[in-house]
């Protein structure tokens, strides 16, 4: 028996189509008023268990249930869904990465946002306002040329602008010689933009649940059981849960989860900080980023300037923030966007990014134990890649064989000296910095 959302609030119940039929067939759960997904009793065994109720885990569950007929799926989240990186990122999406293995994946991910908005019947607030990366040196301009050629090769729109054109596109930029690092050129990526990250979490949770997946919040995995080279289940604060296949999709916490199986990974969880200013009238209509200033910034629909980029180099599982970066952010932002002088910061927060040495993710399966799958190492690209990673990880988990597009991302590349060279990104990190 399924309780429908109560109509007592005066609002009419949201029509659920065409997934409503599926829900009644699956039954067993309770959809409480105001909730987007059913609460189901935690069972002792699932075909597939996914560790991490963020965008990657929820998207994988969604596609497993929707496209591969695997509905016996449980997503285990130790806190609440979207608690980790999914709710802490700065919501920027783009497909202007550096290497020809990465660009097609991010490009498909970028094209998924409007499709998902339709499919999930949930407004993800995709705003393809375009991204402008700034170069402040000849070396940075050369790196832009490489990216632009890769993008052209992969069919992604990416253009080189000179400083004057940057100023025409974003009048708030100071394109004169006054800033400490004068703007030399820009790399303009019109199809990129921002997506409301909470909406993605909620929409995917609702979609996954409607198609049959179970979402369990407050269930913390404390150990992983294996037997005869196979994953057999997880030990949690709510008891043991058996499974045939296990996906580690825990974002920044992935290295700690893998360590439960004594698996060493080329992954370093680092704390990354972000902040927003007080709301301002709309003036910044693009996502702007700068490697030299170590800053990216965009104006949210509420008018705040959301900005970030800072990482302390030491491995760190806390989400603490530091006054040092608050100061840096203010100095850097106001140097190339002087109109922001005197504007106040309202909030600052931090999340975790799991960094690989080559800045590209690790997408692998059956690599240490049969039935063990890993979707990690996205660093600070985990948000923009979430749904597309879930789509292909679902295919991987359902068939047991890596889809062609994921094969270059296997863990073994780090043992074969085949690093991907995505390091041409805005931020500096790690002990080699």
């Amino acid at each position, binding site marked *: 028996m399924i309780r429908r959302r109560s109509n007592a609030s005066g609002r009419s119940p949201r029509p659920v189509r065409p997934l409503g039929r599926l829900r009644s067939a699956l039954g067993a759960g309770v959809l409480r008023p105001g909730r987007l997904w059913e609460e189901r009793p935690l069972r002792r065994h699932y075909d597939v268990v996914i560790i991490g109720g963020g965008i990657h885990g929820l998207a994988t569950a969604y596609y497993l249930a929707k496209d591969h007929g695997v509905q016996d799926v449980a997503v285990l989240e130790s806190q609440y869904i979207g608690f980790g990186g999914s709710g802490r990122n700065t919501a920027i999406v783009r497909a202007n990465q550096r290497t020809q293995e990465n660009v097609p994946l991010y490009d498909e991910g970028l094209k998924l946002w409007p499709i998902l908005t339709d499919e999930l019947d949930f407004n993800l607030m995709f705003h393809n306002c375009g991204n402008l990366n700034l170069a402040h040196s000849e070396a940075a301009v050369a790196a832009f040329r490489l990216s632009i050629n890769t993008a052209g090769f992969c069919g992604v729109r990416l253009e080189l602008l000179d400083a004057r054109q940057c100023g025409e596109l974003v009048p708030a930029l100071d394109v004169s010689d006054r800033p400490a690092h004068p703007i030399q050129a820009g790399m303009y990526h019109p199809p990129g933009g921002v997506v409301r990250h909470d909406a993605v979490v909620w929409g995917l949770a609702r979609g996954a649940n409607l198609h049959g997946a179970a979402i369990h919040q407050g269930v913390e995995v404390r150990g992983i059981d294996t037997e005869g080279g196979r994953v057999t289940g997880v030990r949690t604060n709510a008891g043991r849960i058996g499974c045939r296949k296990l996906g580690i999709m825990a974002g920044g916490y992935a290295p700690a989860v893998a360590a439960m199986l004594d698996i060493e990974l080329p992954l370093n969880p680092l704390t990354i900080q972000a902040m927003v200013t007080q709301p301002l009238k709309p003036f910044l209509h693009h996502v702007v980023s700068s490697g030299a200033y170590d800053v990216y910034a965009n104006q949210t629909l509420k008018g705040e300037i959301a900005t970030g980029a800072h990482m302390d180099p030491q491995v760190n599982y806390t989400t*603490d923030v530091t006054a040092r970066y608050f100061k840096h952010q203010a100095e850097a932002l106001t140097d190339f966007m002087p109109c922001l002088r005197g504007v106040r910061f309202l909030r600052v927060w931090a999340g975790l990014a799991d960094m690989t040495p080559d800045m590209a993710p690790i997408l692998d399966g059956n690599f240490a134990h049969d039935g063990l799958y890993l979707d990690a190492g996205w660093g600070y690209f985990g948000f923009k890649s979430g749904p597309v990673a879930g789509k292909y990880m679902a295919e991987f988990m359902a068939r047991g064989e890596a889809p062609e597009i994921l094969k270059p991302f296997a863990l073994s590349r780090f043992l074969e000296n085949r690093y991907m060279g995505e390091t041409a990104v805005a931020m500096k990190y790690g002990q080699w910095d």
Partner: protein
Amino acid sequence: MTFRLTCPVCGKRDVYEFTYGGPERGPRPAEGDAAERADPGAAAEAHFRWAQFRMNRPDPREEWWYHGAGCGVWFSTWRDPATNREARPGGAETSGNEASGGDSS
């Protein structure tokens, strides 16, 4: 929140005076022609594992730090990634570290 590290020369200093040098990862594995001949492929793999693969448990571990903005010494110390604070060798968080992290001298 920022914290302080204990430099063996200068004492407790703000962590931003230091450069992180990564965890203590044991001796560098044998490499070169002799090692490669002894077990083809294994020496390279051992090197990649030593250079990049980490067991990043949220537990205290030994790390290398460089006091670049101070005396310029490299030293090893213990820190807990779960709390991002200095820890006693082999385990527990050092007492009084909370207080020292709080006062900004």
